[in-house]
């Protein structure tokens, strides 16, 4: 994915040192003459250090172990390949049903509700989504429904100006659901194809705030029974095992349809999404990488897995 965004060169310099040690380590794994316990442990560590989590790692390794035995694999490098294939297929499994959601529906405004914990990167990710749909020729309207955090409305408005996208906002402390409703109405009136609703960051353990989320979804569905068409969970790629709890709680409350994996250009690998797909079957739809509006791409399982095994560390 770094190729995709042409960032690899920029990153190269800073990563040289860790890259070398990483290559040494991968080489070490791959050159093992036989499949001993230490190899499996190294692979486990690799996954755990990428935040894949203990349970999911154990399940993956177990499966690959069996498969390797069944195929009679003897060298380490083909086992690593097998593990990668296994992960790609796990991450791809839910693609079919949800992919159409990537593009706006022809019928009316396609409504995307974004949710996530505080600081996950919702507002920036929304700017990226807006830019993405604009590039595809859609007219986009943004709803500034984060009326809680100081400066949140202004932040979205700054993005709106930069991108030339209309932002529907009330004052601070306004009713988030009412703003979302207004935005959908405005989008209809102006013939826009996509509405993206920003919401206040909330920890998934706060029930009253989860109720507020439900209300936003409910109010939107009054204008369009299908809305929100997409409920995107914005997840910080540095998130550890708590990401699974987030995905579970948000899904329970408002029925997430996918994950936007934000901030994926750090040293973190975002491996928690593997656990999320495994446990909840929630697809990863987009990745966000840099700070600019164009630093975003649809999620590609193969690239993600290659990256997870690559020496960006």
């Amino acid at each position, binding site marked *: 994915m770094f190729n995709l965004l042409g960032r690899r060169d920029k990153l190269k310099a*800073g990563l040289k040192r860790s890259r070398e040690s990483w290559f040494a380590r991968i080489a070490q794994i791959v050159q093992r003459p036989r499949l001993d316990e230490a190899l499996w442990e190294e692979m486990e560590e690799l996954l755990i*250090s990428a935040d894949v989590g203990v349970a999911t790692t154990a399940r993956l390794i177990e499966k690959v172990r069996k498969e390797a035995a069944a195929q009679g694999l003897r060298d380490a490098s083909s086992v690593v390949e097998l593990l990668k294939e296994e992960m790609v297929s796990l991450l791809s499994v839910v693609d079919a049903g949800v992919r159409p959601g990537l593009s706006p529906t022809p019928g009316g405004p396609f409504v995307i509700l974004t949710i996530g914990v505080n600081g996950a990167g919702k507002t920036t990710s929304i700017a990226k989504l807006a830019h993405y749909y604009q590039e595809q020729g859609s007219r986009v309207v943004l709803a500034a429904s984060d009326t809680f955090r100081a*400066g949140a409305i202004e932040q979205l408005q700054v993005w709106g100006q930069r991108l030339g996208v209309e932002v529907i906002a009330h004052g601070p402390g306004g009713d988030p659901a009412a703003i979302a409703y207004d935005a959908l109405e405005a989008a209809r009136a102006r013939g826009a194809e996509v509405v993206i609703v920003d919401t206040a960051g909330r920890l998934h353990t706060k029930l009253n705030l989860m109720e507020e989320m439900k209300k936003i979804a409910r109010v939107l569905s009054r204008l369009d029974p299908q809305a929100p068409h997409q409920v995107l969970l914005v997840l910080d790629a540095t998130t550890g095992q708590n990401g699974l709890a987030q995905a579970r709680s948000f899904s329970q409350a408002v029925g997430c349809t996918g994950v936007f994996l934000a901030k994926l250009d750090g040293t973190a690998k975002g491996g928690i999404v593997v656990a999320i797909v495994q446990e909840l079957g929630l697809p990863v739809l987009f990745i966000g990488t840099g700070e600019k509006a164009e630093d975003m791409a649809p999620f590609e399982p193969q690239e993600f897995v290659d990256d997870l095994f690559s020496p960006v560390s």
Partner: protein
Amino acid sequence: MFEALSEKLTAVFSRLTARGRLTESEVDEGLREVRLALLEADVNFKVARDFVQRVRERAVGSQVMESISPGQQIVKIVHEEMTAILGGESPKLANAARPPTVLMLVGLQGSGKTTTAAKLALHLRRGGQRVLLVAGDLRRPAAVEQIETLGRQLDVPVYSEGIDSSAVQVCRQGVQKARDIGAAWVILDTGGRLHIDEDMMGELEEVKKATSPSELLLVVDAMTGQDAVVSAQSFHERIGLTGLIMTKLDGDARGGAALSITQVTGLPIKFIGTGERAEALETFHPDRLASRILGMGDILTLVERAQESMDQQRAKELERKIRKATFDLEDFLEQLHQVRRMGPMSQVLGMIPGFSSIARRLSPEELEGEHLKKLEAIVYSMTPKERRNPDILNGSRRRRIARGSGTTPQDVNQLLSQFRQMQKLMKQFSSGKPPRGLMGMFR
């Protein structure tokens, strides 16, 4: 998977008869569970490995104390070691020889720097001192507006310049301004980046040089995974930190990153952020975080939270009753009220040892308390005498209560059996045994 770490360890050791000493293989078996618990809590895998190794050395051959099982013995050692790494008593903020004392906050994007800056300002001002906030994040759109708004809300002055200025310029001028207005503290908010890069480090180094901060605090999101230690180390190596602030500990993240960072950098944790409100900045207690990382619940925080929502005397009473297990249906009712006032049930349950798994399995509706309302109605329909002495509730009294509360005698019976379970549970708390089979209680 490890909320019941001590239960698991107890199971591991259940086969062992009390032989008085722990052998290597026995310890290893138990420590595997500990290692998994640490990894699930986002403790860095290298740190977890070293940590377990250290615990192993202490645990092997150690005398099993008479009062506790081998499993609890290991948990105790783990807990002690962890508390030691996390730090001693809460460290105070350093004071500059000549005011103003400069506090500089650094961290990755979204870790909560700006919110924390405002919380610190309020905290210091409540200590009776004048504080100035400086809007040194010129990078994120509207970051300046955010801190200005927070300053207005808290009535704390904010120094800012236009976004065409530079971070170094704003911070230098900010410190000068603090001097001019006679502020004792000046808090510098700085711009985050998505990850460690040259650009950010260069900027932070310059700000540091220009303002000579007494404290350089790294703001870390408690939900951060394995990467936490990598970025903390880079910050520390490059600009020399003096401490940490962990944010978003009001969620259900275990916060294992704290252990990784303190272990690797040796930096103290100075504060923790526990909510969105400006007051939600707390002093750090190493032992509590250790319990949390191990999934052992946090009964002390629970009691403190209870204190916030009721008066001191009642809190003491509740604590005494929990410990002595002498509470009746009046207390049960009172507790229902308190629990609902203390915050979301899921959070409250998470703080009780062994309950976090239950909280996770309940649906939002169950946690929300439709059920609690029904329980309340039943208890309301009892006479004070019945509440104090549930044993007198015979069939006809139960039927009357059911009619009065719009429920059925079965509901009343269920409540009574739940109440008995709860009493039993309280006894287990006070005797330190892990509670079991409590799922039914909140259904």
